[in-house]
Each structure stands twice: as structure tokens, then as C-alpha cells.
């Protein structure tokens, strides 16, 4: 991305400014990093009530088979992701990964079965590349559209359901990873029960022209506070969720990244449609033999946060390197620093003591189970 190109704006840009947000460049967009309440309060409010996030910078893609059959769309997409898409029922959503020929991760995404088409949500920083990748490999058999006329918001936290139920009573019947279409304030929206915080919550795709109106009305609810990218990052980190570009990228495989759960049986060795995605040979071999390193949770023992990029060692003198921190910060709900990163296989057991190099010191940090907070998904 050219850092000198003008920043793009989401349909909620004016709303952010009116709410007093501090704006920063992120993935080519001018985005709110925090509002006047600040990262700490925004984080805690999301876990105790409900937080509203603008994630309109993310890519929303419609994938429709030229045959018109959803099965053909699913099988086409399976050529690019190690995910059971064919087995995804109508009205359901599933996490997925685009892999490259090395079995490494090009992006992570959400895949929803919308009945006659698939609806994908991909990362902002990857959306042009993802769309070109889809066009190149699936363009002959599928029609693809990268939507530029829809906003995407997330409402997350224990009060999210009650807030939305005032607008659409049936929201309570949705389970985690259900997707449905419903009118909010008479605006047709696509709603999924999912998110990036570890909390119960919803992600809502709204036509751009109505996005500010719908969002303002949700924000009028006393339980709802706008949340910036700062708290979005600390929330997802406590929840143990990967950030593409930090924790997963084109140097990590799904097995390295401890994302085996995102590859259903049908695509694994011995499955009905085993392999058949880029880099399958590498990934399936790692499934059997293991990888040389693995993503783990890391809990710093002191008060000092340990940030992404910090090298990890087996010893307090920094002699035996064992890995690297990929994301780290302070967890406001955990009330201690939290991190994740990669360690070699000898150091992956929970409770293993390792040392992170921070400003020339070697700080004790313990391999710990993810997530750092208990998710409250409504399964």
C-alpha cells in the first residue's frame, strides 16, 4: 500500500468525528483508534455491557456460482481454503483461511452460506489481494463482487442481544455463527452472531446510505458505547484471536498457528474431500507429523507489557532462542499483561517458563492457555 495515497473513509467517518474520536491511518483508512472514554474504559464497557465497532474497512464479498447452485460455489471456494464449505448449512457461518502453495496463510476470513450465494468477510489490508486471488482462481465458474456500498458494524458484549432485540425480537433465536437477514429501523441488514472480542455479539452489514442512521440509533441506547481499534485489539488479544499480519501471515501455516480446528474432517487426510487446497501437501503432513513451532498464549509474570516482536529465550541470559512474541499488550479484563507468540515444540506446554527480551532485560513469561478470558458465545 502506498502510504502517501489519501486515506479512505468508511460510511461512518463523519459519525466518528462527531463523537470526538482520535483518528489514525489503518489499512488505508482513516479509522477511530479511541473515543474520549479511552481504550481502558472502552474495553471494560464491551465486556460488561455493549461496544459498537465500525469495521466497514473490512472487505465484504459475494461469491455466486455461474450455475446458480450453492454447492458449486462451495466446491469452488474449497479450492482456496482448507475448510468444509460444502457442509456449511444455509444460514450458518464458519471461520476460514486462504492458504498459498507453501501451505502458509494469505488471509483469514468468515464464510457464510446465504442460501443462493456465499458471503465472505476478509481483512481490510488484504481485501484487494484476496479479491484478485478469488477472481484468478474462481472467475471462470463464479461471479464475484467486492461490495463497496455496505458498511459493517459489530455490536459486542453481554448486552448486545438485548439492545438488538429492541429492534428485532427474533435476534434471540440466533445461535453463535448463525447468519440472518433482518430489517433494523426498516433498513435491510445481514446479521451474524459472531465477533472478534470473545464476547457474545453480532456483526451487521448495512447499506452504506443508511449506515450512519442505524448506527446512531443503536448508539442512543444507554448500554452502548462506541469502541475504537485500540480496544478492539486488546479485546481480541485477551480472547486469543489472531490478528492477520501479526500472529498469522505468509510465514505461518494453519498447524503452526494452532488453527487445526478451522480445518474440518472432510478436508483432512482420510476425509471425503481431503486436500485440494493450495499447499495441502505441507499442511496435511504437518497435521500428521506436527510443525516445528506453535502459536501459544504467553503471560508475562511482571507488570511490564511484552509487545509483538520481542524475542523469546529458554533462559534468563538470552542464550537459547525459542521463539518470538507476535502480539502483546495489557489486558484490562485480565488485569495483567497478555501476549501470544510462537515457540518451538519443546516449549509449548502450558506452564513452561520462558524469557522475553524487553529493553535489554529478560522478563519471565509463562506459556499459558488461550484465551485469557472465558468466551461467552451463545452456542
Amino acid at each position, binding site marked *: 500500500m502506498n502510504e502517501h495515497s489519501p486515506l479512505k473513509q468508511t460510511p461512518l467517518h463523519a459519525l466518528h468525528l462527531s463523537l470526538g474520536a482520535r483518528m489514525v491511518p489503518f489499512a488505508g483508512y482513516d479509522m477511530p*483508534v*479511541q473515543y474520549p472514554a*479511552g*481504550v*481502558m*474504559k472502552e*474495553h471494560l464497557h464491551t465486556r460488561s455491557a455493549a461496544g459498537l465497532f465500525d469495521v466497514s474497512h473490512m472487505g465484504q464479498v459475494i461469491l455466486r456460482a455461474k450455475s446458480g447452485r450453492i454447492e458449486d460455489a462451495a466446491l469452488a471456494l474449497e479450492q482456496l481454503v482448507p475448510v468444509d464449505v460444502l457442509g456449511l448449512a444455509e444460514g450458518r457461518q464458519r471461520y476460514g483461511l486462504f492458504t498459498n502453495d507453501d501451505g502458509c496463510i494469505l488471509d483469514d476470513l468468515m464464510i457464510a452460506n446465504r442460501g443462493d450465494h456465499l458471503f465472505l468477510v476478509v481483512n481490510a489490508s488484504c481485501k484487494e489481494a484476496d479479491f484478485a486471488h478469488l477472481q484468478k482462481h474462481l472467475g471462470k465458474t463464479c461471479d464475484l463482487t467486492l461490495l463497496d456500498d455496505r458498511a459493517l458494524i459489530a455490536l459486542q458484549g453481554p448486552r448486545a442481544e438485548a439492545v438488538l432485540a429492541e429492534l428485532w425480537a427474533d435476534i434471540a433465536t440466533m445461535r453463535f455463527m448463525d447468519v440472518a437477514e433482518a430489517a433494523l429501523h426498516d433498513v435491510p441488514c445481514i446479521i451474524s452472531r459472531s465477533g472478534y472480542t470473545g464476547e457474545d455479539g453480532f456483526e451487521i452489514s448495512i447499506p452504506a446510505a443508511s449506515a450512519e442512521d442505524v448506527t446512531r440509533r443503536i448508539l442512543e441506547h444507554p448500554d452502548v458505547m462506541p469502541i475504537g481499534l*485500540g*480496544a478492539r*485489539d*486488546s479485546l481480541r488479544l485477551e480472547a486469543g484471536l489472531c490478528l492477520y499480519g501479526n500472529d498469522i501471515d505468509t510465514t505461518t501455516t494453519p498447524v503452526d498457528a494452532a488453527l487445526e480446528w478451522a480445518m474440518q474432517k472432510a478436508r483432512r487426510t482420510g476425509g471425503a474431500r481431503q486436500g485440494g487446497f493450495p499447499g495441502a501437501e505441507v499442511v496435511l503432513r504437518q497435521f500428521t507429523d506436527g510443525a516445528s513451532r506453535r502459536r501459544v498464549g504467553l503471560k508475562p509474570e511482571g*507488570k*511490564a*507489557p511484552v*509487545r509483538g516482536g520481542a524475542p523469546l529465550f529458554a533462559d534468563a541470559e538470552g542464550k537459547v532462542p525459542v521463539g518470538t512474541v507476535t502480539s502483546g*499488550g*495489557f489486558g*484490562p479484563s485480565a488485569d495483567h*499483561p497478555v501476549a501470544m507468540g510462537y515457540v518451538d515444540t519443546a516449549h509449548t506446554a502450558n506452564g513452561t517458563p520462558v524469557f522475553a527480551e524487553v*529493553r535489554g532485560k529478560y522478563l519471565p513469561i509463562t506459556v499459558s492457555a488461550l484465551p485469557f478470558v472465558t468466551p461467552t458465545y451463545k452456542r
Partner: protein
Amino acid sequence: MLKFTDEHEWLKIEGDVATVGITAHAAEQLGDLVFVELPESGTALDKGATAATVESVKAASDVYCPLDGEIVESNQAIVDDPSLVNSDPQGAGWFFKLKLSDPSAANALLDEAAYKELIA
């Protein structure tokens, strides 16, 4: 005498000792602090050297030594409760006291009016 730096530190100078902290503007920009690391008493620091580190939820930032000198006291209260820096940056949230090698060097720093112009 109250002085400021363009790195957003304030210095309250009494004799040859400066009490140093970060400005309200800097504290606001950093956001909620969760960790502060301060230099030990007796540490000699040159102007521009890293004297302290502060961390918000999101990021770490260095606090630089505003003048040549020796640390004579650090504020343990902000180590124990970093939020003091956000709530009272130019009072209880002071960082350290610096015995100045050359007190006259402080004359070259910004006065309050010049600092306010800098952040305007």
C-alpha cells in the same frame, strides 16, 4: 521556574534540582497508562537519553532526559499506580528529580507560553 521540552516534558526547577514529568497533553495523547519504568537514583544521564518508559494498553513510549544530570529521586507512586500520570500529570504524576549538571542550560528550554504554542 517551570520549563518545557518539545518532547512534552515539564521541569520544575528549584536550585539545581529539576522535578520532571510529562505534560497533560502528552498524558492525554498516550492514553491510560498501565506500566511505568523509572531510572534508579544515582543514574547519570545525558540530555536526550532514555530516562523512563511508559506503556499504555496499546504501546510503549520513551521519556527522555531533558538535560544532563543525575537522578536523585524517582516517584514510586506512579510505578505502583500508573493512572496517577493520567489523573495528575503535572502534580502527583511526576517522574523523577534530576540534579542538573549545568542549571543554566535550562534557559534554552521552552517557557509555558512557547510550549502552549507548540501544541496548539
